[in-house]
């Protein structure tokens, strides 16, 4: 197993984070914005895991589980909202404007 240094890991995490952030900023489709937010959350989770590995402690992975749970709840609510939008506005999802 090749040990990846913390630095490299954090760089990967921040690239992921900014990818998500830029996605939120430039995408007009709400579906893609939701996905971008997920990417940002995962970037944060990845940073936790790297930090936990660096210190040899399980805390990072526990935090990742927390983030995963929060993300799941958030996606559930977000998707429910999008479906409501769709039903009320009678438009296909890709065409939903940003409110």
């Amino acid at each position, binding site marked *: 197993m090749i040990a990846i240094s913390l630095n490299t890991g954090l760089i990967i995490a921040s690239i992921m984070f900014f990818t998500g952030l830029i996605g939120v900023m430039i995408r*007009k489709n709400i579906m893609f914005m939701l996905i971008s937010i997920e990417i940002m959350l995962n970037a944060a989770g990845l940073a936790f895991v790297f930090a936990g590995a660096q210190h040899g402690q399980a805390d990072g992975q526990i935090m990742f589980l927390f983030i995963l749970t929060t993300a799941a709840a958030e996606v559930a609510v977000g998707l429910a909202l999008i479906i409501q939008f769709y039903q009320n506005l009678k438009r296909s999802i890709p065409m939903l404007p940003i409110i």
Partner: protein
Amino acid sequence: MYDLLWLVPTFPFLGFLILAIFGKKIGKKLSAVVGVGSIGLSALITILIGIQFLTNPPEGHAFVQTLWTWIAADDFKVNIAFHLDALSMVFAFVVTFVGFWIHLYSTEYMADDEGFSRFFAYMNLFVGAMLMLVMGDNLLLLYLGWEGVGLCSYLLIGFWYRDPANGYAARKAFIVTRVGDAAMAVGLFMLFYSFKSLNIQEILSVAPHVWSPGNKLAVASTLLLLGGAVGKSAQLPLQVWLPDAMAGPTPTSALIHAATMVTAGVYLIARMNGIYLLAPLSMTAVAIVGAATLLVAGFAGMAQTDIKRVLAYSTVSQIGYMFLALGVGAWSAGVFHFMIHAFFKALLFLAAGAIILAQHHEQNMFKMGGLAKALPVTFWTFLIGSASLAALPLITAGFYSKDAIIWYAWSGPNGSIYLWMAAVFGAMVTAFYTFRMVFVTFFGEQKMEISHYPTWRVHIPLIALAFFALFGGFIELPGTLGHLTLFSDFMKSALPVVEGGHHEVSLEIFSQVLTAVLALVSIFVAYYLYLKNMQIVTNFTSTKFGHGLQQFLLSGLGFDWLYERLFIRPYVWLSRTNKRDFIDFFYVFLPWLARQFHYLFKYTQTGKVRRYVVGIVFGVLVSITIVVIL
């Protein structure tokens, strides 16, 4: 008995509350009972306390009753406490006793007025506030009463508020006295700064140790207090409000603008005698103010045609005598004249009120005449009051009180021949305008029929006050005439006795005889000019000079004219120029700037979440950059 002291001001306040709350409901009869009864009870208790004070004086000739603490903040402590000594005893007696007769009289004078209970409510409030003023043991309580009586004065001058002229007179009185009150407030601050206390007795006992005679602070604070006294007592240069204050109902003029409130300045100076003695300059100022006022007001009184304005100017003039007495150091003579003046001036005003009622509310005495037969009781009592005011020798109280002042103006510690000359000349003028009024009003032909005959409610107060105006003087006789010093002995515990000066008996007799002769001569001149041979006066006033002089004296020596040009017009000009309020520009600018920013930032509020996110990211980047760079 002393423990009942708190009841003395409580009854009038209670009467005020009852009348103010239930006045409309309980009707005129019950309003009169409450209004007169409260003052009557108060007067009764005052007299009982006075009798005990005479027979069995309290320890140290002063009794203090502390009711509760009013303000306590660090070392600033003010109690609601009453201080009773000889000085406040005399004032409280006059306020309640004379006040009672005037209230009784008012039940008839105001009988047909729709504001009957309102009138009695104000009058009761006035008596209560005046008692606070004279009995308060600290200067703050005194100031509370001081402002209270000022308020009542305002309310009662403007009592018939439907006539705008009355409202104008009321505002004038309020604003002019306010000038003095502001000076007095500053004086009180200075006293507190020097003594860290506002308790009068404490200040008086500590003052000689803190201030050396002639100390600048002592002079400044006493002059400021004099400013307050001058405003309230209508002395030069703030005397302009009192003649206009005659717009109020006549009982008000009798009680507030003659007998009691306007003498508050006399009380203040007499009360603070200890610090005035440390400031010889202020003493001289008091004497000069008094002497100048008694002359100015006397001259103005000679030309008035309104009977109430004659009395108003004579009040100003007589208070000038009191100030003169205080200024030359004859403290008890000043207070003695206050008491006698309260009796005869209240009497004169009440009698004048009866005349006005009897003459269809006409106040111009040249339209009256020949009332002596029609209104005998009013005539005789008015004559007694006038004789007392004119200081008719030997038989009237006014002679004894005024004679003492005239003599002390020369012989007193601060006296001088000039003050004496002013006082003698003033006495001559007083006798002249007083009897001019008597002759014009009561003699000659009757020009108007009688519209109202006074009843016992008018006659009893007149007779009671006439009794005191005639015989009240016999408790203090000058050294040359029996030498009785009951009053000054009584005042000795509260006021310093006259010290220094010179006492040649022959000079004193000369002064007395001269005053007496001059008074008699002026009465004769008044008789000759206004009854026997009125042609001389009409001829004189028809010449250009005579007419000008008459108008000049009628306007009160042009003080209103002067103040109009000195203060009112510049003020109006300034306020007109500054209509837009240039200071306000700054405060208009501030909201304008905020509004401009608002318009600017409005454009960022688009409702698009992506834009907000960009804003947030941008902000975060800027913050991080700043943190990294610094």
